[in-house]
């Protein structure tokens, strides 16, 4: 029996070994790995998101520019769907059977147990019909959310638009966005996305094995309510913006109006424009494709993306820099024989002015005067050579916000164009001097500015020497925060006293009988400005006016560009005067309404791009009749070697 007694230990040993095996396995699945813990969480927890309303965007007088409107997404949980009358559902939400299958398969592919969007953005009318019959469609439910609505259909380029996030957006956001979220894709909606979007709410719900909700997780301790986005008060003036868009209807170009003292942009018109409501809702994609067809590129934000030679509007800068450097004084005269000649370059002047000083030179927009000042600046003795002098000049010009982004609070602003000496040295080797770049003196040649930059120059002159970065949002949220960079004064290093003579000249341009924009004089308001007729290599000249008003304590600085409209005085100047008067007086005088209406009706669109096939049909007509003159070419635009614009 003794040897059998030892078998007790074999059996007890077996018990212990098996016990240890069990404990070891338990240790692994319970302590060593959290795989099962995570599985348990995903078994029972469902996060149900509630969407916040986007922040409302107001104009400067707190009239809404962008609001929210409720829409309804039809959601589906595929594994809860039972047999139902598919045709009825299709009828109610107005889709066909193919689309139904496509949507359903897409939802199933996403998840069989989690809700996904079946059909998005149903209107309230569809929702009303649907909700009565929803019980017929097990597995389907409706989730409300808000989309944008633009009550006045204005300021599309300023507002931009929102769109459902793309997979790339989700990836870039490091997990913030989820499929089905919306994101600002352009305009303020994009640049202020993080403020406007608000915070999603989340409810952590527990579900049992039969997918029946069992109430909230941890008494809702981890639940959050959706927080609406911050409201934005833009600097735009709704009335002014509307007037500007109406005036620019059927024209190509832009209007930028700035309040000089604050840098707030009052009007931000880019034409052609579109109804921002087209970029909302179920037809967004189709509308977008339709808008893309417009040859004048609707989605260009011309105020910050359009490149124009500043032309005559650059001349005040010549004068200001001349005065600051001491190379001229207000009474310095130059002789204008009708042109300025340097080396092989000739810059023509519209008129023979004889001896001309600053005030009249600006009022009459004398090219010769501008070229002389430029010559004086670049040939100063204090610089070792003209190339160094040019760089010094270029830096001073840049202080006025040319050649670099101004830093407006919109995405996609462009730099403009202004080269430094090394660029020209690269192009002409060592052999260049002020004569080579003399076109810059009159704002032509290798220099481009956006309408915003032009308006900003006017704000600098109106402020007598500084600007505040132009911006479109003046207050964020309930506390009306404003970004610090939009209150800082940027000085241009020209003393205030030098501005008065320049402003004298600009005052005369609008108010003196010999001024170029005398027709646009406003009774009782001293507007200062300059017209420009900017050479356009691709067609008819652009009509430009820049200015500010009133002369003392200016309230509005403005730049108007009407592409292909010829002289600055015919279109741009009157439009600017209407805008200025509307803003300063709050309304337009009755005697001007007819003019304004006339202006609104003008159609100035560039000729469609020439196609090789098109003339044929016209030729047939022209055979019978006397052949009409070919499309009018501006007679002024006849310069050859040097880019010399027809300036007034």
């Amino acid at each position, binding site marked *: 029996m003794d040897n*059998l*007694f030892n*078998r*007790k230990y*074999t*059996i*007890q040993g*077996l*018990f*212990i070994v*098996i*016990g240890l*095996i*069990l*404990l070891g*396995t*338990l*240790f692994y*699945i*319970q*302590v060593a*790995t*959290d*795989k*099962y*813990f995570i*599985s*348990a*969480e995903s*078994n*029972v927890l469902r996060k149900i998101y509630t969407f916040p309303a986007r922040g409302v965007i107001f104009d400067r007088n707190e009239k809404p520019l962008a609001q929210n409107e409720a829409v309804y997404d039809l959601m589906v949980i595929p594994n809860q769907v039972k047999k139902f009358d598919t045709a009825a559902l299709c009828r109610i939400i107005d889709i066909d059977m193919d689309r139904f299958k496509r949507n359903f398969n897409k939802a199933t592919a996403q998840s069989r147990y989690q809700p996904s969007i079946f059909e998005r953005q149903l209107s309230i009318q569809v929702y009303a019909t649907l909700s009565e019959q929803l019980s017929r469609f097990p597995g389907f439910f409706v989730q409300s959310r808000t989309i944008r609505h633009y009550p006045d259909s204005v300021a599309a380029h300023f507002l931009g638009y929102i769109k459902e996030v793309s997979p790339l957006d989700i990836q870039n956001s490091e997990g913030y966005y989820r499929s089905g979220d919306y994101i600002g894709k352009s305009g303020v909606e994009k640049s202020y996305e993080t403020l406007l979007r608000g915070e999603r709410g989340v409810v952590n719900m*527990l*579900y*049992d*094995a*039969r997918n029946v909700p*069992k109430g909230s997780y941890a008494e809702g301790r981890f639940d959050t309510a959706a927080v609406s986005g911050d409201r934005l008060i833009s600097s735009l003036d709704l009335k002014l913006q509307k007037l500007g868009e109406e005036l620019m209807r059927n024209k190509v170009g832009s209007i930028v109006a700035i309040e000089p003292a604050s840098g707030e942009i009052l009007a931000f018109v880019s034409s052609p424009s579109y109804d921002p409501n087209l970029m909302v809702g179920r037809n967004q994609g189709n509308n977008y494709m339709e808008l893309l067809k417009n040859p004048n590129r609707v989605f260009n934000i011309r105020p910050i993306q359009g490149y124009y030679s500043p032309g005559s509007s650059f001349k005040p800068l010549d004068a200001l820099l001349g005065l600051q450097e001491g190379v001229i004084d207000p009474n310095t005269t130059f002789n204008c024989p009708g042109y300025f000649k340097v080396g092989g370059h000739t810059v023509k002047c519209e008129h023979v002015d004889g001896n001309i000083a600053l005030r009249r030179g600006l009022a009459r927009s004398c090219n010769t005067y501008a070229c002389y000042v430029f010559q004086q600046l670049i040939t100063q003795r204090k610089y070792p050579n003209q190339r160094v002098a040019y760089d010094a000049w270029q830096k001073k010009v840049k202080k006025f916000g040319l050649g670099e982004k101004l830093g407006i609070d919109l995405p996609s602003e462009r730099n403009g164009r202004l080269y430094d000496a090394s660029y020209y040295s690269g192009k002409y080797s060592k052999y260049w001097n002020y004569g080579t770049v003399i076109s810059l003196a009159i704002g032509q040649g290798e220099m481009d500015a956006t309408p915003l930059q032009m308006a900003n120059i006017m704000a600098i002159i109106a402020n007598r020497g500084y600007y505040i970065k132009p911006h479109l949002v003046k207050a964020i949220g309930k506390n009306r925060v404003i970004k610090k960079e939009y209150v800082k004064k940027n000085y241009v290093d020209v003393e205030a006293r030098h501005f008065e003579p320049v402003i004298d000249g600009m005052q005369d341009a609008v108010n003196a009988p010999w001024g170029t924009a005398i027709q646009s004089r406003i009774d009782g308001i001293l507007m200062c400005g300059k017209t420009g007729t900017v050479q356009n290599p691709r067609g008819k000249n652009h009509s430009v006016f820049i200015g500010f008003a009133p002369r003392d304590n200016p309230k509005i600085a403005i730049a108007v560009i009407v592409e292909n409209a010829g002289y600055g005085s015919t279109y741009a100047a009157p439009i600017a005067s209407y805008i200025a008067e509307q803003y300063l007086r709050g309304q337009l005088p009755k005697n001007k309404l007819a003019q304004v209406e006339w202006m609104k009706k003008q159609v100035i669109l560039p000729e469609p791009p020439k196609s090789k096939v098109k003339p044929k049909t016209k030729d047939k007509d022209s055979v019978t009749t006397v052949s009409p003159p070919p499309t009018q070419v501006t007679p002024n635009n006849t310069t050859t070697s040097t880019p010399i614009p027809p300036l007034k």
Partner: protein
Amino acid sequence: MINQQSSNRFFFNVDWITILIYVALCGIGFVNIYASIYNPEESTVFNFSTNYGKQLIFIITGLILGLSILLLDAKFFSIFSPIIYGITMLLLIVVLVVGRNVGGNQAWIPIGSFRLQPSELAKFGTALLLARYISSFNPKLNTLKPVLIAALIIVIPMCLIMLQPDAGSMLVFLSFMFPLYREGLPGYLLVIFWGMVLLFILNLFLAPWVLISSILAIGGLFIYFNKKKQQRMIMIGVITFAAIGYLFIAKVIFENVLQPHQRTRIELILGLKTDPKGAGYNVNQSKIAIGSGQLTGRGFLEGTQTKYGYVPEQSTDFIFSTIGEEWGFTGCFVVIALYLFLLLRVINLAERQRSSFSRVYGYCVACIIFFHVFINIGMTIGIIPVIGIPLPFISYGGSSLWSFTVLLFIFLKLDSNRMGFI
């Protein structure tokens, strides 16, 4: 004087430590059944229409049953063991006729509102008769005839249970091998038996030619090392070819004898199939529940897997998943430690018996409980196929609790009387 001494002896002689563990396990069972069925909307402990209410009745009646067993004469079990065995076998036949079919098994006899499971009773019936056979005849278990008789005692209930068919309960009877081993059954028989089980499993895993060639290689190796001993060489050769022949038989058994759902379960455990939503659902959810308990558990009534019904049959066969989820590794450790302590204690108690009847019976008790614990916990953590047998003292169910109580308390009675002769 004598009376007092005998009554004192009664209380001192009963092993109260074992009873304490028994009560502790029953208590753990009740708490976790309560948690498994817990419904926040109607949370009264003494609601006898619910399963935890019923379990409380089972525990109380079980205790009464156990204590009344302690009051019986110890000789009763030895004397009446053939009759008890006979009755339980009769019940196993009755259940085939009048039994209720639950979940594919005809294992229950409805009596009033309760259901009797004869296969549970057959365990201690068989244990008693086996003990009686060995104690009465003192057979030499290394000879053929006694082994066959002992095997017959075990195989009869196995066959009857297989007709229900309830593979889980049937397999438990394999645990009687260990008491026989203790009483002299040669160790190599056990090795051969479990070797066959191992081959059966490997047969499903590996391609036949891999298995056959590796058996031949191992056999060849053994022959090479024993080339001086002719007798051994022949034996090894026979075993090798028997093993290969067995492979084919095993394949046939697996494909033709086993139920399809049993096949699937075995395949799932061995990782031959993955199907977390289908047949593997129970195990998967049970593992998730246990694993999510981590070190200290989610706390009483806080287990989400348990509360929201992710683990099927949670109060019965999968009760361990509740323990694992709500009490964590700590709780599991305590439970397994209690079982181990109980088993080792019972073995130790068995070895101090004077009568071989008590010793053999003690071993039977320990091994039956061991088998249940190992298979049940093993299946909830996915290391053993899903075999539907309860966790002793903890799982919900009157039949199971009572039969384990009776099983254990008969032994305690025998132990308290160890000085007497049976």
